[in-house]
């Protein structure tokens, strides 16, 4: 059997995944896709938590993932409700057209 993958590989994968999510948040204009990219970043953090839990053989990392998922679910529900409310007012979910707070 080949050697086990070191923890650093998982952490590196998590870092790249997080950066892809960050690029998506910065580059895309569709608010729903921006939300999906935020989910990507949360999942990258989850992967790091689980990898560290395995490295330390401590269950705490997996418990934290449970909390991250709960907060992500709450965030998705409220965020999508906000998107629906904005769409009802402006007929768009384009982030560039919501510029009331723009300096």
């Amino acid at each position, binding site marked *: 059997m*080949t*050697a*086990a*993958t*070191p*923890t*650093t*590989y*998982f*952490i*590196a*994968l998590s*870092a*790249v*995944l997080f*950066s*892809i999510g960050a*690029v998506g948040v*910065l*580059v895309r*204009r*569709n608010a*729903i*896709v921006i*939300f*999906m*990219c935020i*989910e*990507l970043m949360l*999942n990258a953090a*989850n*992967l790091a938590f*689980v990898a560290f*839990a*395995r*490295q*330390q*053989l401590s*269950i*705490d990392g*997996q*418990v934290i*993932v*449970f*909390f991250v*998922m*709960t*907060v992500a*679910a*709450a*965030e998705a*529900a*409220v965020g*999508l*409700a906000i998107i*629906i*409310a904005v769409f*009802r007012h402006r007929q768009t*979910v384009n982030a*560039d057209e919501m510029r009331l707070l723009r300096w």
Partner: protein
Amino acid sequence: MPVLLFLPLAAVLLLSALGVVLNRHPVRSAMCLVATLFLLAVFFIFLDAEFVAALQIIVYAGAIMVVFLFVIMLLNLEHDDSERRRISWQATAIGSAGLFALGLLYIVKKTGTLMPGPGMDATPAADFGSLQVVALRLFTAYLLPFEITGLLMLAAVVGAVVLAKKKIA
């Protein structure tokens, strides 16, 4: 998890994550995100986190993605032709995120050998990551955060209903 299995799975994971960012159509982005979430569940299983992997599929790929698809359907966002930002902005965003990733990778490379703990070669206990072990920890050491989570969910439900309602009577 053998490296020979890790590398192709990681490549597919990153490709589907790129698919989320690059696809013009929101539904295709959502499908790529579902693929990403499933692949992450595979990684969780290899990291001895069976319960978290099941949660990942049921809660993320199941519940959260259904909400996303439902909103896409509700808003009927089929065409999305305004999807283009200025090239200078895109280059700045990609460049800074790339620098961020390189910095993170550098830190991981420099500090990876210093990581505490028994590491991947150690065999975990047979029930590591099982529902019983996670639940025991959750309902003892993390009981207060767990209860606060319940409060957060209540606030989220009420907030979502109030926000999405047409008119509050």
